[in-house]
């Protein structure tokens, strides 16, 4: 087990570096545009380029980049978006908004998803199950921005329950802030609820038909006892890692929901860095998104082994 985890982590770091290198080289290969924001003095610009090492060969620049970023934690200074500010500081200040929206949506959707899934599995092939399965099919297929637009139109505009856009301040725990993130949370939650429901239903209904459930009933447990003590636990084996993976990936958030509801978070920063060609932001956020993806994959894989000791990871 330990060996397997170690192997996965080493592989992850390797992949991370390969991707980072590819992105760095590709960004450096972009045609250089004249930097105009630091005054019109061409001499000054040249001096600055020289000081930042932009005139050195790409490999040398890459060495500097790695030393500065990974060893020193210095990701450079924003050139266009937040001129003159530290990229890392801006990034950290944007993180809470994204985090808040996604944590709320997980808190909302995990219980609901499990509940619906369990209910559908218990009522398998009855009308309740059919209704839930049909809804799940609908909600999984429809793109998240369609709900977002629906939520915005019906709840925010027609019924005027919530503001159209999220508050931009930093008072993350005030009531008005909570109200303003509800639309974004709802739009994010629909899809998660649906996919969790589907997983839970599939797993639980498989477990419910297995032999040990029959044994549990024969030895005198009621249906409820058997379901809670034997079926539910076993069905959580594949479901729980998925929840765990979602919890890691909530850091990265949803670009499109953030865009629609004006969440002042990381996603918007990333989009802006692309349109404004702010490469320091771009590199940081690319590294961030890649890392999140890699870590959530590993967490899912490893948690299988921890949750169910019967699964020996890394065996052939």
């Amino acid at each position: 087990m330990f060996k397997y985890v170690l192997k996965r982590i080493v592989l992850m770091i390797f992949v991370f570096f390969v991707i980072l290198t590819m992105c760095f080289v590709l960004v450096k290969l972009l045609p250089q545009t004249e930097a105009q924001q630091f005054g019109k003095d061409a001499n000054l610009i040249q001096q600055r380029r020289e000081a930042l090492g932009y005139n050195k060969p790409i490999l040398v620049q890459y060495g500097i980049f790695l030393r500065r970023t990974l060893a020193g934690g210095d990701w450079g200074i924003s050139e266009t978006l937040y001129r003159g500010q530290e990229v890392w500081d801006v990034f950290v200040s944007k993180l809470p908004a994204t985090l808040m929206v996604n944590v709320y949506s997980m808190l909302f959707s995990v219980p609901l998803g499990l509940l619906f899934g369990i209910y559908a599995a218990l009522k398998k092939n009855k009308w309740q199950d059919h209704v839930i399965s049909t809804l799940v099919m609908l909600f999984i297929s429809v793109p998240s921005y369609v709900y977002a637009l629906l939520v915005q139109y019906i709840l925010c505009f027609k019924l005027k329950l919530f503001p159209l856009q999220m508050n931009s301040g930093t008072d993350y725990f005030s009531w008005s802030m909570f109200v303003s993130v509800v639309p974004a949370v709802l739009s994010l939650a629909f899809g998660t609820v649906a996919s969790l429901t589907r997983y839970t239903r599939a797993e639980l209904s498989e477990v419910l038909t297995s032999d040990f459930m029959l044994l549990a009933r024969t030895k005198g447990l009621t249906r409820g006892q058997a379901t809670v003590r034997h079926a539910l636990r076993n069905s959580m084996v594949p479901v729980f890692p998925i929840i765990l993976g979602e919890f890691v990936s909530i850091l990265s958030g949803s670009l499109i929901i953030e865009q629609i509801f004006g969440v002042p978070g990381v996603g918007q920063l990333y989009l802006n860095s692309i349109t404004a060609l702010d490469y320091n932001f771009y590199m940081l956020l690319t590294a961030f998104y890649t890392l999140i993806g890699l870590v959530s994959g590993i967490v899912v894989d490893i948690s299988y082994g921890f949750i169910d000791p019967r699964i020996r990871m890394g065996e052939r």
Partner: protein
Amino acid sequence: MNMKEEYLNIPKEEFEFYQREGVIHDKKLETKPVGYFRDAMGRFARNKSSVVAAVIILFLILFAIFVPILFSNNYTNSLTDTTYLQYSRLLPKCDALAWTGWDGCKDVTVSSDIYNSYLAIGVETGMSPITEVYRADYEDSSSNSSSTFYDIRLDSYTQTGMIYLTLTESEYKAIQKYQNETGVQVIYPAIDTSELRLESLKNNANIWYKCSNKGMPRLNKDGEFENIYKTSGNDGDYDSLRIEGDDGSYRYALVSGTSSAMAFKVRVFSYTYFQYRYGFEPSFLFGTNAYGQDILTRLASGARFSLVFAVCIALINMFIGVVYGAIEGYYGGVVDLVMERIADILVDVPFIVVASLFQLHLARRVGVVPSLLFAFVLTGWIGMASTVRMQFYRYKNQEYILAARTLGAGDLRLMFRHIFPNAIGTIITSCVLMIPSVVYSESNLTYLGIVNLDSSTRTSIGSMLSAGQSLLSTYPHVVLFPAVFISLLMITFNLFGNGLRDAFNPSLRGTED
């Protein structure tokens, strides 16, 4: 025992042929053999939701193919027309379904001066933008303005009313000719603006009546609008239809410029001008967007692009994935290890990073669409490759492969004639499921503006949605139709794909019965 002895020595003469004439065959099978695909199709046909989904997909595809052809007209084809903007944000209108509310009208509350200006359009042209008055002339205590309010149903097609146009002489003559031929009044009399004090009123083509500085009409004693049409001056010898009540003294244009290049400033009714310009009465099934573009044809052409694009990507990814997976799975060992690691690295690159990098790098050189295509292809084939690899691992050590190898079949023949057909069901399924995922990612990227596919001739569902988002509260129809279309596409493709997956799974054979 004796019996056995007897049978041992049966003399030759005792034997006779069972059947003397004809050749003896095996009995013919009474039922037709059920092949793999026939079996799958049979199972697919029993899955009602998938069949319904397939029908809807067919309908959506036909919509995407034929609507841009059938519904193309002078309006949708004239892309650089500036009068276009006069027809922006028209609401969806369908004459056959007008009773359901699909009539190009919407319910609004207006103040009395605006109400009167709409009324005036109706009086002047005979086509009133007010189709129904729900509640007239009431005071709203919540509003601090002194005017009264009206709840009305407003026709978006005639609400613009008059617009000012500056025409050349030939255009002016052409409109007059059109009026004579069809009897449709396009040009309305010019206005004598000397009594109007405010510049905003002078520039408002809809003020053809005596009014106060606030635009409130001054009615005569019969309660009618009093016109302020121009009766003097040069109008370039207008000799065409005259409006009702014209004794021949009204002037229909303001002439400026030199005699060689005369310009005619005329007041035209936007509705009938549309008829003159494009040859049909304005009526848009899905309405128009903020730039006056017809949503129906734009949606259909956007959908056509998305579908063609997705099918291309699915085919390319299938090809790469199959070849890559086949080599991995067939040869195994070091080849497999190395190729798997390459795929591992590629699959972990976030798609959004790939797409944005390709946009930054390639879009300028090879265009937006090819660079987007590369972005999809770069990581898209990996899922397919791993499916094919699994299938190859499963089948390559089976006896029939050994038998084929013993008979002298080469690697390529073994791979693609003997092993590959086993994977064909899963490949078709993942190919079909790739189409909605590509459409989804593409609409995501265009929505976010990372990829810009929007132009006068081409669009995508994502950019239609993002353009409509700012109009969501006032003109939801701009968003509604693209959103419905893409939702329907996603749902039906997923249902269809699930149906196919079940159909191509022979282990499910007979389980439903």
